[in-house]
């Protein structure tokens, strides 16, 4: 039977934990709102960009000189997985899910006889993956200390990815990130970055009827890196929004669990207190009887 003092101390410590988790929940909720607004604001641009790219890509079908960023390289051997995670933890399985998805993808690609490299975007993903896959991690970047992700950040990463691709370090790039569906659900998703959706014969049938300035090839050369940056940007924004949502949910259940624990401990405490009083009473009565 723990003494009254230890019980009291435990109740107090659980209470202060509960205060922290509920404060974190509030903070996450406020940040989630901002992150969600940012993600939504960025959507129209990404949407238009996608439409434009699709129209232009169709015209490149069957062109042997089409940009490798668009159609990829023949017999791609090395595959780069970009793992997008948050920089901080305490968000349930948010980061662990990405690590799991990356491992699954890695196994699948290696089964096809491909070499796999990993680019860890976000501190937690790097921490989780480097334990056993340190030799596969070819690069890492995080945004620790940044309040909001700017487009410039995404563009820097995109430039780095394109540089590596052009240098022949890898032949294909795909992105693994948590797609923000709603506050309760963030789904680990894989998305191809390079090649950016190879045009198919089907597209060709509905070839675009745009006039193009300066010309298809030149425009695509500018559009493709831009598109890569946009995709990365929207993945990073989804990641940020998903992280706060996940943290909010995690902290909410932590607060509730702490509440339950306090209830249980208080019950124990009161029982022990009552038992003590009863014992003292018995002692007094039996003492009085003896006299």
């Amino acid at each position, binding site marked *: 039977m723990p003494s009254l003092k230890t019980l009291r101390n435990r109740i107090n410590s659980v209470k202060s934990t509960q205060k922290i988790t509920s404060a974190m929940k509030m903070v996450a909720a406020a940040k989630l709102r901002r992150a969600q607004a940012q993600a939504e604001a*960025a959507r129209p641009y990404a949407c238009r960009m996608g439409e*434009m790219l699709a129209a232009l890509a169709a015209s490149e079908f069957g062109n042997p000189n089409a940009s490798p960023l668009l159609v990829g390289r023949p017999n791609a051997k090395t595959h780069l997985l970009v793992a997008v995670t948050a920089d901080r933890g305490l968000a349930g399985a948010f980061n662990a899910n990405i690590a799991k998805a990356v491992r699954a993808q890695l196994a699948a690609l290696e089964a096809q006889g491909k070499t796999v490299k990993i680019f860890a975007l976000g501190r937690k993903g790097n921490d989780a993956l480097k334990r056993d896959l340190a030799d596969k991690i070819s690069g890492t970047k995080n945004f620790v200390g940044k309040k909001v992700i700017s487009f410039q950040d995404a563009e820097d990463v995109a430039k780095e990815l394109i540089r590596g691709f052009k240098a022949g370090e890898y032949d294909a790039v795909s992105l693994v990130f948590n797609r923000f569906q709603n506050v309760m659900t963030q789904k680990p998703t894989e998305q191809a970055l390079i090649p950016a959706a190879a045009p198919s014969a089907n597209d060709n049938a509905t070839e675009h009827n745009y006039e193009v*300035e300066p010309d298809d090839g030149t425009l695509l050369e500018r559009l493709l890196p831009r598109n890569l940056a946009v995709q990365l940007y929207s993945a990073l924004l989804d990641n940020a929004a998903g992280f706060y949502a996940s943290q909010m949910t995690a902290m909410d259940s932590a607060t509730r669990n702490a509440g339950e624990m306090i209830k249980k401990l208080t019950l124990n405490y009161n029982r022990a207190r009552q038992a003590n009083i009863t014992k003292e009473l018995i002692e007094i009565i039996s003492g009085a009887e003896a006299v």
Partner: protein
Amino acid sequence: MAIALEILSPEKLLLARDVDMVVIPGTEGDIGVLPGHSKLVTSLRGGLVDIYENGAVAERFYVSGGFAEVTESRVAVLADEIVRQSEINAAKAAEALTAAKDAFAAVSLDDAEAYREASDTLIAAQALVDSVPPHAIDKI
């Protein structure tokens, strides 16, 4: 007759409304877009987007580059960076021009891509300095 104009930056939708005419700085030259324009996709150089309403310029934006998609009833300007002309900071613009000039001087002629990028940046920076609204110049 009006044409629906959308100006978007990667971060947000900046402006969406019906205008009479819009002039966009294409890489091959300025393009005036009226309702019923043929379908067009173009890349943009650094320069000013002029929005015309009731026969006069209603608003001016500086874009550093990007793309535009034009259809019969709609113009979408996908800008890299965009500022309202009245909000351009003259000192910062001059600074950017100096930096772009230095970068252009340093770039090697053999690296075609870097050269193209540096010259694009220089054009954009020059256009930015040229776009500084007249009242801001007096302040320097």
